């Protein structure tokens, strides 16, 4: 009868433990990364007594989490894939806004206005008012070149800032993973799988996968070795290799004015461009490739624009009365008031960042009559220079004489529109895949309240029944004891 009592007790324990686990599952139904747990129950070790095999009730073998490593890996990959495209679409949307001329005016419009203002000046080359209209339009062009440049720069800076913030977050996560590695190793040395700790470690890896593509394997003692694809090991056992960011003042690197990512203890080996997938790779690709290319194209357009306008403008004579020598040649002896060879725009010092530094020449700023229209002195009605400048609009002066300024600029807009559209599409698609993978994981590991409710009823019944068994045993004791009376 003592056997009966103890069998009842084991049943009671097992049911209670199962109920506890059900409770734990329900309590964590909404915990991110939680995998439902299950009690593995076994029969007690049977004993042989009097030639009979006696069962000894049940025992709890262990509590395991329902988890699929393969699905987990797929989830990490889908996460880094999606966050790559999501971030890329987000950043490119900002970039394309700079070139959005659908509902507002942009460089294309002001360039067009600039050339048409020279056509207008061609109508009435002797008119001072139109000269000032031309100058105002030229200023608008310069302003828009600057707007594009500064907006692109600020997107670039924001990306660098975000990279910096990301690295801080990454460092925190990998430190956490290293700590979890240690905890898991300790707790699993004395017992079975530490499900909850493993769940939170997997969750951390998933967070890490948002930043870049991760590669994870177990070192045999239940500790993870985490590395970033293309970069190197970040966590090995209980040790984390921290990352750092820095600009040009880092030792041993080519200064390019940009923020770079490297291992804290190896500052001379930046791996900014080696990061694959994830938010970081997307931001760096947009910053270093897309924005870089756009900036180069806009600079080139600005450079060619300024130089060709200048080249034509220099050949014109000022719109003032000029003294002629007996041969009909203009006398040009006042250095401060040139009559010919005047630049319209200030001559740029270098091609790089030109769109930021462009300005009208000081002559044009000082005196409207320095805007030239005539190819011969004292010819106020001569509009040939103005016409020639207006015709630059359709001259193929770029890319070895195959592209006009407008075409080149529109090409840039087209490219940015295309890649932005592609990134958006990819982001939508990868979002679908991520959701699918998440749902596969959740279907497998997630808590179902219905299921837990059914289990609760089941385990409670078992608990009740085991208690009944014990009660019966107690009654049997009473019966036996009452024999003596």
């Amino acid at each position: 009868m003592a056997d009966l009592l103890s069998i009842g007790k084991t049943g009671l324990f097992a049911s209670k433990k199962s109920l506890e686990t059900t409770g734990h599952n329900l309590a964590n139904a909404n915990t991110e990364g939680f995998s439902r747990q299950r009690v593995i129950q076994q029969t007690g070790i049977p004993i042989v007594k009097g030639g009979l095999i006696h069962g000894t009730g049940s025992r709890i073998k262990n509590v395991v989490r329902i988890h699929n490593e393969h699905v987990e890996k797929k989830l990490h990959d889908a996460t880094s894939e999606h966050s790559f495209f999501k971030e890329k679409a987000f950043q490119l949307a900002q970039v394309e806004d700079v070139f959005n001329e659908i509902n507002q005016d942009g460089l294309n419009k002001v360039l067009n206005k600039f050339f048409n203002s020279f056509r207008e000046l061609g109508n009435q080359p002797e008119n001072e008012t139109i000269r000032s209209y031309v100058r105002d339009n030229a200023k608008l062009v310069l302003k828009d070149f600057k707007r594009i440049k500064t907006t692109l720069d600020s997107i670039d800076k924001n990306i660098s800032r975000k990279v910096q913030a990301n690295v801080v977050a990454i460092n925190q996560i990998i430190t956490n993973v290293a700590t979890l590695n240690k905890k898991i190793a300790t707790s699993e040395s004395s017992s079975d799988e530490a499900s909850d700790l493993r769940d939170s470690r997997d969750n951390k890896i998933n967070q890490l996968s948002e930043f870049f593509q991760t590669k994870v394997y177990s070192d045999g003692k239940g500790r993870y070795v985490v590395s970033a694809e293309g970069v190197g090991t970040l966590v090995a056992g209980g040790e984390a290799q921290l990352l750092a960011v820095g600009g040009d003042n880092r030792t041993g690197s080519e200064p390019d004015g940009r923020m770079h990512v490297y291992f804290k203890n190896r500052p001379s080996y930046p791996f900014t461009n080696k990061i694959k997938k994830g938010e970081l790779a997307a931001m760096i690709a947009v910053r270093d490739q897309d924005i870089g290319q756009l900036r180069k194209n806009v600079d080139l357009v600005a450079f060619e624009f300024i130089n060709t306008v200048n080249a034509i403008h220099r050949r014109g004579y000022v719109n003032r009365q000029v003294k002629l020598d007996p041969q009909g040649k203009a006398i040009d002896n006042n250095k401060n008031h040139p009559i010919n060879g005047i630049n319209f725009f200030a001559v740029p010092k270098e091609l790089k960042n030109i769109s930021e530094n462009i300005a009208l020449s000081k002559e044009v700023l000082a005196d409207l009559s320095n805007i030239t229209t005539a190819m011969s002195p004292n010819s106020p009605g001569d509009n040939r220079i103005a016409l020639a400048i207006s015709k630059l609009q359709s001259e193929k002066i770029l890319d070895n004489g195959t592209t006009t300024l407008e075409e080149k600029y529109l090409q840039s807009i087209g490219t940015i529109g295309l890649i932005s559209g592609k990134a958006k599409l990819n982001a939508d698609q990868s979002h679908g895949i991520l959701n699918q993978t998440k749902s596969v994981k959740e279907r497998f590991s997630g808590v179902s309240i219905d299921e837990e409710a059914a289990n609760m009823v089941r385990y409670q019944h078992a608990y009740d029944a085991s208690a009944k068994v014990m009660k019966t045993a107690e009654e049997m004791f009473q019966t036996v004891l009452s024999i003596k009376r």
Partner: protein
Amino acid sequence: MSRVSENSSSAAVNFAISRAKSKLEDLQLKGSTMKSMNRPSDNPVSNIESLTIKSATADNKQYMRNSNFAQLNLSATEHALENITDILVKTKEIGIAQASDLYNSDVRKNISNEVVQLRNELLVISNKRIGNKYIFGGYATTKPPFDKDGNYRGDSGQMALEISKDFFIPINLNGSEIFFSDDDSSAKMAHPLEKFQQMERTPKYDVGKEPKQLEDEKEESLQKIDHSIQEKQTQKRDLASNAEHQNSFKPRDNIFSQLNTFIVALESNDPKLIQDLLEKFDNSISRLITLRTRVGSLMNSLESAKSGIDQENIDFATRQSQISDADVAELFSDIQKQQQILKTTYQAGKASLNRTLMDFVL
């Protein structure tokens, strides 16, 4: 049958709702702007086409302005030519009458006063202005092209305007063309930009070279061209200028000098000279008629260019609308449909989220 957990079903509902909502938002934006695209990435290719059309439309607007301006100039020129012809015809009639020996010197002297008056009228016409601009001065538009003796002070500049893409027409006749018969520059209208060879080929910029250095190279080549233009220019000026005319032995055949000679002939009672002049008057008149035909044909091509631009503008507007305007009927039926989808998504979500076994067994 696959297992369903709390998170998987709520995620499914979330995903469905957010997808339906983002589609509705997109449609709403299209509805509020009435445009089928609002960002370059919505349709990169059409966006470029739309921008090109916008530029071309703006250019056309300017060409239209240019055409109107050219029309103003040409019709003023035409009127002036008509008046000059009238004066010459009148002069010729007088000349025919006076060529015979019917009249004596007194009558001729009186008649000469009338011719002097005609000459003054001619001078006024020759210094005709539009606004502040003298139209017969070539490029010298700010000072009177003819002095009171009928000497030409302008040059042979020909002002051209672009009235539709790459189509330039001259908008002025210079004084020498009209009043000096032996100037042969009148017949041809050169493209105003033919001297700008450097626009044909690209100035190359090697990345390695400093812009300053490149500038210098370019400058050099430009100066060469410059020089040749300069030479031509001054040559032409000499041809037209009256300085040469005054010194030359043989007087140039000039309408003013014809009138002056006529006045002298009348005053000196010289019917022989008047007879000689008659032929010259005829020559001048026929030249003026040729010029008028030229102006007339320019006006015609202006008109046709203008109607061409009008037609082009309509085509552009049509294309622009096709590219960027939203199809209203389609848009609103889409919105309606999407609203319905969102509503059913909500209802479906309500069915799956609100009930658990707990409600029944415990």
